[in-house]
C-alpha cells in the first residue's frame, strides 16, 4: 500500500495522438485544450483526481514513441520516467492501431512499474465492425487492459476502478516476453547484476535500466556508477559488433516483433484503415493538384464571409457610437466642461473606443471560423 502522507502519482503516457489529453481532462475534470494534431502536449501537465480515499496527482506526459528520445517531448518523458518514476503508469493505446502504440507499451511494461492500459477509441473500432480481444491483450501484457472511449466517457468507471485497485495494492508489472538476440540478453543480465550492487534504484526494474543504458549509452545521467558505465560501454560495442546493427534498431525490432504477434492474436479482423469517411474527404482535400487551390478557395470564402458579415455589423456599431456621441454632446453637464477636456473625451476616449470596438465583429468572426477550421483538422492536413 502506498503511503497516505504522499499523493500517489499516476502518469499518463502514450504515443502521440491517442487522446491522452482528452482522457486527462475526463479524469481530472479540467479543460486543457486538446488538438487533433500530434505534439499538442509538449510540457507535462498536472491535475488532481479523487479515487475513493486517495487524492491522486495525475501527470499528462507529452506523446512519445519510445523512451530513447529523438524529440524534445520524448526527452521530457524519458527524464520523468527515469528520474522520478511514478507510482502507476496509465498507458493509452489507440484501438484503431494497437500495433503502433505497443512498442512503447512493451517498453513501459519492462520498467516493472504498476501499470494499467486503456484502449481508447474502442467505440470507433466497434462501429467499423472490428473486434479487439481485450482479455488476450491483458493476459499477454500481464496488466489490466480497459477498453474506453475518452470522447464519450465509456469505460471510465472501469478504468477508475482498475487504477484504484492498483494504488491500493500496487503490483509490479512482470517483464513482457520479448525474444532478444542472445548477446543482447547476456549484456542486459550482466549490466543488471552490476546495477544490483549499487542500491540507488528501487522502483525500476534493473533489467529495464540495463536495457535503457544499452540503448542510450551516452546519457550517463541515469546511473552514476563507474563500473556500470564501463560495462555498458564494453557491452554496447560487443553487441553491435556481433549483431552488425545499432542497438536501438535491434531493440525496436524485437519489441515490434512481439507487438506483431500480439496484434495477430488480439484482432479478429484485418487491420482497419483509420476512417473510411475521412479517407474519402482526404482524397478530395489532399488531391495532388486540386488540394492546394481548394484550400485557398476555402480560405477565400472564409475571408469573404468574415467581411461580408463583419462590415454591416461594423457599420451598425459605428452608427451607434456616432449617435451616442451626439447624445452625450447634447448633455448639459458635459457641454459646460472646458473645450480641451471635451475634445479629449470625444475625440480621444470615445472615438478610440469606437475604432477598437468596430474591429470586434471582424475579429470575433475570424476566431469563430478559425475554430471551425481547426476542429475540422484542415490545418493539420495543410502540413502535409
Amino acid at each position, binding site marked *: 500500500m502506498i503511503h497516505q502522507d504522499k499523493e500517489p502519482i499516476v502518469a499518463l503516457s502514450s504515443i502521440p495522438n491517442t487522446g491522452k489529453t482528452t482522457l486527462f481532462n475526463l479524469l481530472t475534470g479540467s479543460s486543457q485544450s486538446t488538438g487533433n494534431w500530434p505534439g499538442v502536449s509538449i510540457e507535462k501537465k498536472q491535475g488532481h483526481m479523487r479515487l475513493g480515499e486517495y487524492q491522486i496527482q495525475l501527470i499528462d506526459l507529452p506523446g512519445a514513441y519510445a523512451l*530513447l528520445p529523438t524529440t524534445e517531448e520524448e526527452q521530457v518523458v524519458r527524464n520523468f520516467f527515469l528520474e522520478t518514476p511514478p507510482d502507476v503508469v496509465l498507458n493509452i493505446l489507440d484501438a484503431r492501431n494497437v500495433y503502433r502504440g505497443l*512498442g512503447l507499451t512493451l517498453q513501459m511494461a519492462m520498467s516493472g512499474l504498476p501499470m494499467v492500459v486503456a484502449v481508447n477509441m474502442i467505440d470507433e473500432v466497434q462501429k467499423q465492425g472490428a473486434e479487439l480481444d481485450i482479455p488476450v491483450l491483458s493476459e499477454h501484457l500481464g496488466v489490466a487492459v480497459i477498453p474506453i472511449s475518452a470522447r464519450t466517457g465509456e469505460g471510465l468507471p472501469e478504468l477508475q476502478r482498475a487504477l484504484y485497485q492498483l494504488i491500493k495494492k500496487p503490483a509490479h508489472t512482470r517483464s513482457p516476453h520479448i525474444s532478444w538476440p542472445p548477446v543482447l540478453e547476456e549484456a542486459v543480465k550482466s549490466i543488471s547484476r552490476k546495477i544490483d550492487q549499487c542500491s540507488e534504484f528501487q522502483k525500476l526494474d534493473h533489467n529495464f535500466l540495463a536495457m535503457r543504458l544499452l540503448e542510450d549509452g551516452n546519457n550517463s545521467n541515469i546511473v552514476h556508477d563507474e563500473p556500470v558505465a564501463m560495462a555498458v560501454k564494453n557491452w554496447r560495442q560487443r553487441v553491435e559488433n556481433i549483431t552488425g546493427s*545499432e542497438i536501438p534498431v535491434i531493440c*525496436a525490432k524485437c519489441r515490434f516483433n512481439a507487438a506483431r504477434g500480439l496484434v495477430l492474436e488480439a484482432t479478429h479482423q484485418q487491420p482497419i*484503415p483509420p476512417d473510411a469517411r475521412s479517407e474519402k474527404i482526404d482524397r478530395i482535400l489532399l488531391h495532388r493538384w486540386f488540394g492546394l487551390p481548394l484550400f485557398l478557395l476555402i480560405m477565400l470564402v472564409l475571408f469573404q464571409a468574415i467581411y461580408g458579415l463583419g462590415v454591416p455589423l461594423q457599420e451598425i456599431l459605428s452608427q451607434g457610437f456616432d449617435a451616442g456621441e451626439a447624445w452625450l454632446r447634447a448633455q448639459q453637464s458635459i457641454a459646460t466642461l472646458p473645450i480641451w477636456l471635451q475634445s479629449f473625451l470625444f475625440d480621444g476616449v470615445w472615438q478610440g473606443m469606437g475604432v477598437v470596438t468596430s474591429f470586434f465583429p471582424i475579429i470575433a468572426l475570424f476566431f469563430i471560423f478559425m475554430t471551425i477550421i481547426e476542429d475540422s483538422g484542415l490545418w493539420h492536413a495543410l502540413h*502535409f
Partner: protein
Amino acid sequence: MSSRLSLQAGSECIIRSLGPDKKVARRLAQMGVLPGSRLRVIRLAPFGETVEVSIDQGQYFALRNDEINILDCEMVAMPLSDKSVKIEQYYQIRSLSGGKTFQQKMEHQGISPGIIIQIRELNKPPILIGLLQEKKIVALGFGEAEKIIIEVIDDPPG
C-alpha cells in the same frame, strides 16, 4: 533484387533494410517501420516533397522523399514505367491510377486490374505489352505506363 520504392500512388515494396542514415533508421524503427514491413504509397503531396505511405499493420505516415529514397526495398508493385520492370517478364495489373477517362480508355484496350501481361518492348517508346488472355499486343505511351500499377508474379503462367 533490391531497389528504391518508386514514388507513384499504388506502388508497394517490402523493406529489406532501413538504410544508412542512423537517425532516420532509428526513428522509423521506433514507429514500427522495420525490415519486413510492407510499404505502400498512398498519395504524393502537391510538390512531391512529402509522400503518404501505409504499412501492412494499417498505419499511415507521411515521409519525406529523401527518407524513402534511402530505404532498401524489394518491389512488390510499381508503375509499368518503373526502372525495375524487365522485358519478357510477366506481371499482373493491380490497379489503374488516374481519372475515369483514362480507366475507360485502358479498359477499352483490354487493360484492367487482374489481367496478366508480358513486357515486349520497354526501352524505346511506345512500350509494348502483350495481354496474355486476349493474345494481343497493346502499345502504350510513357505517360500511360506511369499510371498502370503492376505486380510482380513469381511463376510465368502456363
